[in-house]
């Protein structure tokens, strides 16, 4: 199957006064049509910037330094700003992390929804656009959508607002949705509902999903494949089953052990020693070296390359190869 999105050697740097921040540094991954891929990592590991890079929403002082982003047959780096605008919100949609901030506080929900349709379909009538939007609200589980269309964002709770942004993302039946921690700001009970609904809606419409999150527990349940990011690089990627059940990279192992669960009750929670290195002064070698239990002299000097393993997963580690 031909991937719907292929990211190759993407580098997005921020040129600040304090120095260059390599927020995304040489990452490659792909998403197949209808597939759900998890992009996992701690805050500041470059997940969100990856999402914005795909949509061409990197603002100064940030810049995509090199790499290819291929969407279907289009090279997103080469197309015009107008073409990119046509793709945004239409073929690739995005859901943001904080539902309290994503909707414009001074515009009615209907305005914010209808404009999304009209931006990509100039000929549609106001009534048709309205009906589509109202149905979309109903689809994400908002009751009495006709009334709600007239409301302002502040009249909604956080969970409801995130449903609205999900409805907006689904409006033009995109081929790919980038969901940037869509459930992080929500209550656990609402979280479950939103995840379930997104999964269902994507299945029904055959939409592929890039699920960006720091929460392994969430992605474990819904994704087909997982990419784990650390300090701007993907350090391990493979099928969800492999990553969760047999993590190879010490960082992935640490992440999985850190997830609190009930069978570890009474035990001390696992934590990965040390801190994420400052993005302003990344070490010459492996960025995880200082916190790694497998570290060797070589790790300090050499940047591990991405290597494919027999079971199909990709790893960036100098020591795993020796072990197995």
């Amino acid at each position, binding site marked *: 199957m031909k991937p719907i999105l292929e990211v190759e050697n993407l580098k997005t740097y921020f040129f600040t006064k304090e120095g260059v921040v390599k927020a995304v540094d040489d990452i490659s991954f792909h998403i197949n049509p209808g597939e759900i891929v998890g992009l996992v990592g701690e805050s500041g590991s470059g997940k969100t910037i990856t999402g*914005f890079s795909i*949509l061409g*929403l990197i603002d*100064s002082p940030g810049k995509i330094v090199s790499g290819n982003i291929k969407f279907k047959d289009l090279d997103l780096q080469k197309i015009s700003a107008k073409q990119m*605008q*046509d*793709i*945004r*919100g*239409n073929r690739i*949609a*995005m859901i*943001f992390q*904080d539902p309290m*901030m*994503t*909707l*414009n*506080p*001074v*515009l*009615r929900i209907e305005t914010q929804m209808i*404009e*999304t349709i009209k*931006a*990509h379909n100039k000929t549609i009538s106001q009534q048709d656009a309205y009906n589509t939007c109202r149905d979309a609200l109903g689809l994400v589980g908002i009751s009495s959508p006709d009334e709600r269309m007239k409301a*302002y964002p*502040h009249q909604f709770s956080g969970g409801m607002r995130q449903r609205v*942004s999900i409805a*907006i993302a689904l409006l033009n039946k995109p081929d790919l949705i980038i969901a940037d921690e869509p459930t992080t700001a929500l209550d656990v009970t609402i979280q479950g509902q939103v995840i379930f609904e997104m999964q269902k809606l994507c299945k029904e419409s055959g939409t592929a999903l890039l699920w960006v999150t720091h929460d392994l527990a969430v992605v474990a349940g819904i994704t087909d494949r997982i990419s784990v990011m650390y300090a701007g690089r993907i350090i391990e990627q493979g099928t969800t089953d492999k990553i969760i059940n047999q993590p190879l990279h010490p960082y992935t192992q640490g992440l999985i052990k850190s997830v609190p669960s009930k069978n570890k009750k009474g035990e001390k929670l696992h934590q990965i020693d040390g801190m994420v290195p400052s993005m302003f002064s990344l070490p010459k070698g492996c960025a995880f070296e200082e916190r790694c239990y497998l570290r060797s002299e070589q790790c300090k000097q050499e940047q591990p390359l991405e290597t494919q393993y027999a079971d199909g997963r990709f790893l960036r580690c100098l020591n795993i190869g020796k072990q197995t």
Partner: protein
Amino acid sequence: MTVYILQRTLQSFVVLFVMSLIVFCGVNLIGDPIYMMISPESEPAEIERVIKEFGFDRPVLEQYWFFLKNVASGDFGRSFVQGIPALPLILERFPATIELAVFSLFISLVIALPLGVYAGLYPERKSSKIIMSGSILGFSMPTFWVGIMLIMLFAVKLDWLPSTGRGELGTFLGIESSLFTLNGLSHIFLPALNLALFKLSSVLRLTRAGTREVILQDYIKFARAKGLSHSRVINVHLLKNILIPVVTVIGLEFGSLVAFSTVTETVFAWPGAGKLIIDSVYNLDRPVIVAYLIIIVAFFVFLNLIVDILYSFLDPRVRIKGSSE
């Protein structure tokens, strides 16, 4: 909404009352208008008669009581100088001042909003830096000096625009104003520009600051992620948010435009209320001063109310107590 407006109106009357008391007593402390009205060489008996006639021999509070009673029946007293009732005298001059203020507000908005948004969107560009430095000049140059320079340049050197007076008046929808004739427009342009300069700078800086803040918000990025055009993101999503503080400031500044257009009116010999009040202060024309200040305060109070109501339309999160929603 109605309840809210009634409450506010009631509050306004209290403000007006307190303010008139302060003004009345204050004005009584400075100078003796009697020597402005009659020659100092007059007979003492004559002076005595005039003092009695105007009630200057009574205690201040008693004078104030008479004043209040008269105001209640719409009589603000007669101008000492011109001998005609103070209120019509001022109201007759007001349209000229209002039209000057409205037109200068229009000028400052038309220039300041686009420039402010531009400077906020592209802070690194040289043009933005020039705009911002220019706005500091607009802030800091004294109005009277700028007015004289405008006259020097456009009226004297280039001879493009007239420098004094109101010009021909045109009538439109029953309103008489120099905005409705070409000749009138040419007369109002220089004083309006002069008066606009300060507001222009403050609205520009406010717009820029608002733009810089709003442009970083998630909802702007989300609007872009929806594939909206640049102009829609700026004109709808950004502008509607920065208009909230701008409307507040404009509303309040409009009051001060009217109240303090005195300098510009004096420089350009604009026959408005500002010039009248300056003349009245020189002549210690108490009734005109008091009436003018009361009108201005009433005007401010009214503007504040308008701003509050406008606010609730712009920002749905602001709900006015007693309104039905």
